[in-house]
């Protein structure tokens, strides 16, 4: 029986309350359309589901497009932790051409969101890049990485987990790999 990462997020949910998504930048009505399993959504579990796309976060703007192909979105939702590839592979037509975090929640309240790469079957790397449910602090982002790590331990499935960390200069989660990358 796979271990749900969401089940290891209760402390996170207590510390970092759910909030409405920031929809200030929402342009298209279908950004709040709830995608389903047939559209690539799955619950984040360990051992990981079959058919994962492997890849790594970018180190700069130059390799961002290559990295986008293997980029998953994650959301610590109220009771789940849904994950989906940002760029849909099933041909579903969204106006913006890719998923946004509110497509993982249907636009309802959630705690925290970001991006994720499975570098290989035993390595997970996350960041907090989300305009809808942006991590409010470095600790909030680290807390999610720790919850993922706890889930791997509960599953008895050895995985290393990294957070790309926080950029004090812009006061935002880092979107590129730097010296701030933290293995938990």
């Amino acid at each position, binding site marked *: 029986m796979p271990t749900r990462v969401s089940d290891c997020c209760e402390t996170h949910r207590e510390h970092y309350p759910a909030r409405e998504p920031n929809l*200030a*930048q929402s*342009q298209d009505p279908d950004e709040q359309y709830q995608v389903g399993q047939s559209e690539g959504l799955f619950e984040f579990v360990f051992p990981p589901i079959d058919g994962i796309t492997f890849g790594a976060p970018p180190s*700069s*703007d130059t390799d961002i497009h290559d990295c986008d192909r293997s980029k998953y979105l994650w959301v610590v939702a109220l009771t789940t932790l849904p994950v989906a590839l940002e760029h849909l592979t099933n041909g579903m037509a969204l106006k913006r051409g890719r998923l946004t975090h509110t497509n993982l929640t249907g636009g309802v309240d959630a705690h925290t969101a970001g991006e994720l790469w499975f570098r290989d079957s035993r390595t997970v790397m996350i960041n907090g890049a989300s*305009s809808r449910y*942006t991590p409010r602090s470095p600790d909030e982002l680290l807390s999610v990485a720790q919850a993922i790590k706890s889930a791997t331990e509960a599953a008895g499935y050895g995985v290393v987990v990294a957070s790309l960390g926080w950029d004090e*200069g812009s006061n935002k989660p880092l979107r*590129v790999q730097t010296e701030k990358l933290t293995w938990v």
Partner: protein
Amino acid sequence: MGLENIEELDLIFGPESKGTTPQERARSSSRIFVRSQVQLAENSPEATGRRLSAWEALETFGLDKLREVFEYSSAILSCTAEEPAQTLHNRREDLGLSVKNVAKVTGLNEDDVENAENPKTLTSIHIIEKIARALALDEGTISLTPGANGDPKLAMRLRTLESTHRSSELVSQLCEAAWVSGKQYELFKWLYSSPPVALTAKGFEPNSNYGNAEYPAWKQGYWLARQARKILGVSEEQPIKCMRELIEDDLEIPLVQTVFPETIAGATIANGSVRGITVNTKGHNHNVWVRRMTLAHELGHLLYDPDENLKKLLVDQYSDLEQAPWGQTDYVEQRANAFAVDFLAPQKATIEVFKSVVDCSGGLRKVMDTFGLSYTSARFHIWNGLDRKISLDDLVVDNWETTDEWSGRESFAIDYFKPDSVPISKRGRFACLVVQSMAANLLTEESAAAYLGCSVDDYRSNIDVIRGICGISDEIS
């Protein structure tokens, strides 16, 4: 990426911003962005990076990057994992400067400079910008563009300066002057939505005639001086009241007054397509009549030397400038010397003024007072104008000092500038453009202070003094 719909412009620049184009919206936007070494985001009080106006962010990073900020909560700026470390390291090496040199000129410690050149290290953007400015790079595009728009030809010229001139101190000062000139040009374009009018459009065409055996270069210098006065609408009898204003305001040429090593008088310097003049305020130029000669000499180079002679850098020593035009063996310098003296004091008018006083000393001093001409220049100019029929030994004065009126006009913008923490090189027209740009919502207060090289507190508490010096009224600003 298609955009520019109203909703998107509202999102990026705020609904209170006005206009239909991104540029119009940015000019009226109250939105502030903040950048680090690697990312750009919307401002928040906790961010430690550099705060930028919507205009600065749009002009520097482009609309797609601003859109990315709102889609992902931040935009990635670093174009490769090696930037900006590689650019900073290569540029320093290209200029022939050591880490210690850069640390000294920026006031940073050597570890800061080394860390900034290490691609594995994240460095404060404030430190990176300081280093970039010291290396005559465009600090705005650092990380984003390899090379950060640094002019490679300038670096080559500075590296290969004649050994008699070259010192790390001088290279650093010329880099600073090049940065100020380039930034001044950019601020002008931002403020007036177009670059300064080209000198050729004003009627100044490069002139490749440096004379020959029958027609020496100094005669051509005199001729060019007369042409320049005609173009500027200044009669033969009229003194040039203020060289600084003529260069900065009338001709819109960046002028950087700075402190060079004692022997250097001034230089013309090209940074990319921007040509500027830089002049030493120390040494003999402390006397503003000597400084006026230096300025006129550099102006002669800049107005009339073709590119192949102007190159990217032309450094003049006092020893070159203080010779009589015909005594200078380098024909480029000979022409510029002659241009300078005849531009400041047309020969015919000079002789008339000289002859209006009975004694030679009185006549000489009157020429100096009338045209704001240095003692050495006035002596040779009068002697030559009289076909050397009087003895040079008769052309002497006891008092070489300038009058307060002349000194005040030429030095006002730097002597009375506040705050004191702003280096001399950033006073004058550059400072005025900075203040105007901030008043026009094009720069944040933080950018304005960073450009001037002072703290935000210093800038804030002295802004009225700067406005007064620049003659900027509250209404205009």
